[in-house]
């Protein structure tokens, strides 16, 4: 009898453990899915104030267009994006764009 009791207890502990692990995995999966859609990339809201979720491809396209504009406001957005962007490939695009616009001498007095 004590053996059966111990087995039941063990099964109960295992069930609780498995349920907790499932919940943890579900939370992590949901967080990853959100991250893929909009991995806390709040910097895009600095452009027009809208909060539409953008994927990596769309954010990369925005980085390229910020580099084309290269006005003071666009450079400020790129600098904020560097601190906020969670995706490594977009961060790399931001780095490259910032290097280009900072070395482009036409950037400095283009508001004439």
């Amino acid at each position, binding site marked *: 009898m004590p053996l059966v009791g111990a087995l039941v207890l063990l099964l109960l502990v295992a069930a609780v453990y498995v349920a907790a692990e499932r919940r943890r995995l579900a939370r992590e999966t949901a967080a990853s899915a959100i991250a893929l859609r909009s991995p806390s990339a709040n910097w895009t809201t600095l452009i027009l104030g809208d909060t539409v979720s953008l994927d990596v491809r769309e954010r990369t396209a925005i980085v390229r267009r*910020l580099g084309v504009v290269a*006005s003071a406001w666009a450079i400020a957005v790129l600098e904020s994006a560097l601190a906020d962007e969670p995706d490594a490939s977009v961060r790399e695009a931001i780095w490259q764009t910032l290097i280009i616009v900072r070395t482009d001498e036409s950037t400095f007095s283009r508001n004439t």
Partner: protein
Amino acid sequence: MTAALALPPHSLLHRVRVLEHLTGSGLLMHAIALALLLPNRVVGSQELSRSLQHFGEPLRERCERLFVRAPREVRAEQIESEEMRVRLTEVVRAIVDAEPGNDATPPDSCLIGEVALDRIGVLLLELERAPLGSVIPWAISAELLGTTIRCRGVEYVALTSYRTALARRLTGLAEQSPEIFLRALVEGGDPALQTQLRGAVDALHAAAALAA
């Protein structure tokens, strides 16, 4: 009256670069082009030049933001603010009321054109009762657009047909509600107008190559 956008080489190159990246089929690309090419000088009047710059600079930033974000829909407050409307009304009123200027020399490198004061006067009356987000400010900007590029002694009369076609298209929307105009910014298209814009950008590109 003659209005001009001074285009030193770096400024011309920058504008050409943005214009060459314009995409889409609605009127938004033309609105962005107008903001980038809006005159910043009234030849012979420093005061009017300052007023034009006071209006044009925030307009340009707004349009650059729309270019970068390429939204699927545009809201009225994204293209115009109350402050911008006040500034535009003031500058257009001053242009209409201005005495003929002296024979001041326009900038060496510029996009320059004659402003049709009679048409601007009519649009001013409409501007004073148009709601925010209306097409009227854009119709006025089209009337102010320069038609000739001057660069290192060379002239390209390249934007006359584009200005005429764009002004006609925008004025045609004046009787519609702002919502129709806001939809036209991102929907539909006008291949002929796009072709004329491409022609204008090609001419600006040629001038930029000459200036470099």
